[in-house]
């Protein structure tokens, strides 16, 4: 151990006397607080990392704090940062949400830390602000596309669709076979955005400079036909009657279960869902495949990708050296191995030296070609532009359940975006 001498304040948290972690002089005590969201995978991974790290450094105590996910969680992170009550190390999104937490003011830069050498530049670009890098990947990269149930495809002899028309044709056959073609889970509204967000690769193929123009306020969803397509696709699957009966109330775990067990054929989702399948319906892990959301041209078929979430160090931490060491551990190949062990592999890592195990689930295997030579992929809009309207998920629920027309929804979203852009003080709005 090359670290400063550390000693544990074991059980300090049990006393319940400490008001906030940073109120304690942790430099000597070897204490860190680590704030994550309450998804079971986040918890499982974080617990595994902490266990491994403290096994190597027995004098360190790391307390895992859990917050809600979603918008509520965003709020807690912002509030705690603003009030100086943030945990030493915390997990949060990269991309536009990262920009919204005022990183330069609130976070500790890690640009020149040794482990950053192994991090891919594409990731660094979405956790950088003011010329400094602040984040370290928490998870592998993700794709946004469509999970499909392999047994149904085999049973009906279906091909992986390369275009939206093929996809709809498949749906038609599945429906004709008396099955649910497309699973939607608006009981958790965030899941409703996938058809729009995962269509962004297709937008980029038609309008390569959409993101820049969008950020500058020059391109709008409603007036860019390629961008409206996402909303239209949402509307089409609803109108064609492809959806599960309880789409309005079903939740994400329901969707995961349904696509895995064959209660439905397609589920638009991010690939981190593979982890959830592995945990909740492990027997059906081999039954789930994945493909990118098809566009209009089979030749340009490609995947919209999401940079992983990231871990950051709060500027208010009382133990910056210890925090950096811990984050470096997460961002090392050893951290990846622990992750694979704890929750399985869900996608390609952004860290040099991180290997996927040989026996990855089929959905992961389906995803890898998009990242390899000859594959097509492009980042989601939230990594190219700091603007993401907060009401998108409500709007996509409306469009996806026939309450609002696609064009109308796109226009409404533009309005929502305008508000966000103004709030960020961007030029041109």
């Amino acid at each position, binding site marked *: 151990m090359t670290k400063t001498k550390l000693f544990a304040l074991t059980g300090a948290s049990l006393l319940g006397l400490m*008001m906030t972690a940073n109120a304690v002089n942790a430099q000597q005590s070897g204490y860190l607080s680590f704030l994550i969201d309450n998804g079971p995978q986040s918890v499982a991974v974080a617990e595994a990392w902490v266990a491994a790290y403290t096994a190597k450094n027995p004098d360190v105590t790391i307390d895992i704090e859990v917050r809600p996910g979603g918008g509520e969680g965003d709020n807690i992170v912002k509030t705690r940062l603003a009030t100086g009550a943030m945990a030493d190390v915390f997990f949060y999104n990269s991309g536009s949400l990262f920009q919204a937490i005022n990183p330069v003011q609130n976070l500790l830069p890690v640009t020149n830390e040794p482990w950053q050498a192994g991090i891919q530049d594409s990731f660094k670009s979405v956790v950088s602000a003011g010329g400094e890098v602040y984040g370290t990947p928490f998870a592998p990269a993700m794709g946004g596309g469509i999970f499909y149930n392999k047994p149904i495809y085999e049973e009906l002899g279906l091909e992986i669709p390369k275009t939206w028309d093929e996809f709809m044709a498949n749906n038609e056959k599945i429906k004709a076979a008396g099955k649910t073609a497309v699973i939607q889970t608006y009981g958790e509204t*965030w899941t409703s955005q996938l058809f729009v967000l995962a269509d962004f690769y297709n937008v980029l193929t038609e309008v390569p400079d959409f993101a820049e123009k969008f950020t500058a306020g020059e391109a709008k969803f409603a007036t860019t036909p390629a961008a409206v397509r996402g909303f239209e696709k949402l509307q089409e699957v609803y109108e064609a009657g492809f959806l599960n009966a309880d789409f309005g109330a079903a939740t994400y775990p329901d969707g995961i279960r349904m696509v895995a067990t064959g209660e439905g054929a397609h589920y638009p989702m991010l690939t981190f869902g593979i982890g*959830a399948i592995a945990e909740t319906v492990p027997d059906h892990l081999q039954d789930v495949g994945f493909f990118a959301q098809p566009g209009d041209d089979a030749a340009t078929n490609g995947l919209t990708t999401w940079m992983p979430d990231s871990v950051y160090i709060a500027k208010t931490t009382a133990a910056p050296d210890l925090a950096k060491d811990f984050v470096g551990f997460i961002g090392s190949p050893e951290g990846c191995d622990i992750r694979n062990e704890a929750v399985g592999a869900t996608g390609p890592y952004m860290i040099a030296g991180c290997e996927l195990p040989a026996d990855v689930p089929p959905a992961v295997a389906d995803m890898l070609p998009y990242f390899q030579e000859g594959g097509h992929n492009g980042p989601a809009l939230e990594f190219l532009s700091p603007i993401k309207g907060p009401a998108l998920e409500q709007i996509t629920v409306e469009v996806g359940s026939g309450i609002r027309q696609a064009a109308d929804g796109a226009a409404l979203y533009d309005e929502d975006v305008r508000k966000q852009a103004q709030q960020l003080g961007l030029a041109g709005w």
Partner: protein
Amino acid sequence: MKKSRASIIGGIAAIAATFVVFVIPFLFIILMAFKDKQQSALRDFSWPNGFHLFENLYEVIKTRNWMMITAFINSSLITVVSVTLLIVLAAMVGFVLARRKTKWNGTIEFLILAGLMIPPAVVPTIWLLQGLKLFGTLHGMILIQVAYNLPFSIILYRAFIATIPRELDEAAVIDGARPLDVFFRIILPLLWPVTVTNIVVQSVGIFNDFTNPLYYLPGNQNATVQLTLYNFQSQFSTAYNLLFTNILLITIPPLIVFMFFNRQIVAGMTAGAVKG
């Protein structure tokens, strides 16, 4: 007799209706708490396959490093201290407000009504608590609960104090009482019926408060019982058996308060709320 038969039928109908409307949802919660994860995921009103209550309870309590224990201690502390403060402070205000007519009474009553109506400005409050070094502390949370719930308590008290004859205060003064003696030895004991109402309504409200601790009391060591519900309803999956076990568990303290004061609640309401 015809009349009594009608009332028996009416009684049975009432019992049956309330059973369906009010009891079945609770039975549902209880049944869910007895199930294992797989069965609970079906969310139906079925008999549990096997008895899983104790393992669910154990799971709920030990989750997040025994967070439930911390949460119970915190919530109980917040509830007991803030209700005590509320009772004393609100009764003091109600006492002087009911007894002493000054030109300020109108203003004070306006502020009280405003407190009932105005939704608290969360963000500025956080900003202010931070400045006072009260953000994220139990003290801060207690004071927030006191501030937010004062108006309702004052209104209950003021209405009741108006029904206590002023001659009692004067008799006490003649007996040599100072204002504090009058208040604590004469008035406060006489307010008991309204105090019961206050204890029940406010302690249940504060114990069950979800939003305020969410904003003003971040951090694991500060968890309150309502926030523990989040442990099982996450963004990515819901363990319904544990969620409902949790709901069941955190309903016990308000239930105890209710059983203690059940008989006296109506008396307090008669005394306070209705005469207002």
